[in-house]
């Protein structure tokens, strides 16, 4: 099996007297969707903040591809191949899809913008993600919430990151849009990225994740193989009923 592309050891982060993360270990492989679930206040957002370089942990080690790193800022995290998409998406609604994708990283040909190549790449990327947009020349503001989100994710993919971090991506989506997003997650996995996704929707995450880590009060309260875990076990871990357990204890085989 491949070495983890991202690993966190003993991450601690406090806000004053409140411990948001209390010794969290996490491993992510490429070609894997890792879901982090938990109630509000469990530490999901802080964990995502640490991985994306937005928050510095008080203690603990982070390694990318086996090398210890310090993720001092989102820019540093991106240099290490970690791209993040947050709830606000950070898109410019009045610019079109191509302009948003290449904002600040425009392709040029001589001293001119290479619109043709950019448009071609945009279609390719959206095609790979099975994203349906009417045109890459419509302003992003005119797209649906799921389409906007797909554009934000496509933009994150342009630097070919090893790790993609998605924070609460389904919270603002309708059922159909959630369906499209979950299918998109499967595509990301097929492209070989390691994906960390946080959500409080247990059912959605159970549907697409390979592994599920449950956070509770800043600690890992269970790690599950999604194909083998039952919803009762996941719920118990989220709410804190029953003892914490690790997924590896569970036997394999057809059930």
């Amino acid at each position: 099996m491949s070495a983890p592309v991202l690993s966190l050891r003993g991450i601690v982060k406090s806000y004053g007297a409140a411990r948001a993360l209390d010794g969290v270990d996490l491993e992510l492989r490429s070609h894997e969707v890792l879901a982090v679930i938990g109630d509000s206040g469990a530490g999901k957002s802080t964990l995502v903040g640490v991985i994306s370089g937005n928050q510095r942990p008080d203690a603990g080690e982070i390694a990318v591809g086996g090398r210890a790193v310090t993720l001092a800022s989102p820019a540093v995290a991106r240099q290490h191949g970690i791209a993040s998409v947050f709830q606000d998406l950070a898109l410019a609604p009045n610019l079109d899809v191509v302009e948003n994708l290449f904002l600040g990283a425009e392709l040029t040909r001589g001293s001119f913008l290479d619109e043709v190549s950019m448009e071609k790449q945009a279609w390719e990327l959206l095609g790979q993600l099975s994203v349906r947009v009417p045109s890459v020349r419509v302003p992003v503001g005119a797209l649906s919430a799921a389409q906007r989100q797909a554009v934000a994710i496509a933009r994150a993919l342009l630097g070919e990151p090893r790790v993609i971090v998605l924070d609460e991506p389904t919270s603002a989506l309708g059922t159909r849009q959630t369906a499209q997003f979950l299918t998109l997650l499967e595509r990301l996995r097929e492209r070989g990225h390691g994906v960390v996704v946080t959500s409080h929707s247990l059912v959605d995450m159970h549907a697409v994740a390979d592994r599920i880590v449950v956070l509770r009060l800043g600690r890992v309260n269970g790690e599950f193989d999604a194909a083998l875990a039952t919803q009762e076990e996941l719920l118990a871990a989220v709410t804190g009923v029953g003892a914490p357990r690790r997924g590896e204890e569970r036997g394999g085989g057809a059930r």
Partner: protein
Amino acid sequence: MLRRVGTDRVTPGSQTSLREANRARIVNAVQQRGSLTQVELAGVTGLSPATVSNIVKELVASGVLQTSPTSRSGRRAQQVTLARNLGLVAGVHFGARSLRVALSDVTHRILAEERMPLPPEHRADAGLDRATLLVTELVESVDARLDEVLAVGVGVPAPVDPATGQVSSHGLLRGWDGVAVPEVLGGRLDVPVHVDNETNLGALAESRLGAGRGREHMLYVRVSHGVGGGLVLGGRLFRGRIGAAGEIGHVSVDEHGALCRCGNRGCLETVIGAIALMESVRQSHGPLTLRDIVTRALSGDPGCRRLVSDAGRSLGAALATVCNVVDPELVVVGGQLAQAGELLLEPVRSAIESRAILSLAGPVEVVAGELGPSAEVRGALALALDHVAVPGAGGPA
């Protein structure tokens, strides 16, 4: 207007009743196959081209059918479909790990479709909630209203009692046992709902719209997360006593094999189902999904190729037994594993050939499904359409 079918009775054997029966034949044929030329209609119904032409003209005038010019082998022809404005139908397919919903008009033209991954061992209540929301959102997306939906067809990955619409198995689909889908979903959408087993619907779709067109006797197998099958005999879906006909996934192939979710031991599904395949690559390749296995096999990974061809051999061995019993004209293989194409089908054929009865006509033909992952949802749409009462068709088929 659509659901009200003419009730005034005519004397049997009279000219009028004959004409009415012919009209019903034509409408039913168009309803089942989506679109046909007038010449094909004559072939299918056994009526003379002149009669077909007259009746079609009459039905176009009364707004039931519509025609458009087309060509068949270089000749001009009239394509006949149901009138688009008759309404919409929805198809819902619950697979072991995904939900697919499609919306079509009465001519089998798909207007909108969506797929959603589902968690393992999903529950009926949550699943039917999602299906309700998806159908509603799809209807809105084509600027229609829910009351324009004439019927909904639903496929579930377990046997369904044809009489009651209840999931009739025990333990095959935990969380769905005994659920009466027509009542639950019909109650939420306020539309008539018809249910069948997913592979029965796949068989129906492939036989009418896909690889089995024009064949009388066909066996369809679906190899995906689970393994199932459906039988079309004499052009009609054969469901059996509790709707479990064709459940090839639970044919016992190894008396000392692994325990199956159905409670028996060594079922075909415990050998070639997704869980078994994923388990056998885990040691060498790490965790892979069924899709990954197929993709890697196609791109030349020796381990995954071996896994797929072994699955084909086991499948072929089980199919040979079925072929000896029902002697179909055609075996259609669908489901995710069938995306591996000849890698799977070649070993299936040779395993069947070495076991099935030798015949002068040669071994049974084995082909991949034409409708791919949409076969089951297309079948759900066809099921719904079969239950739509079209004026002039003489009631639901």
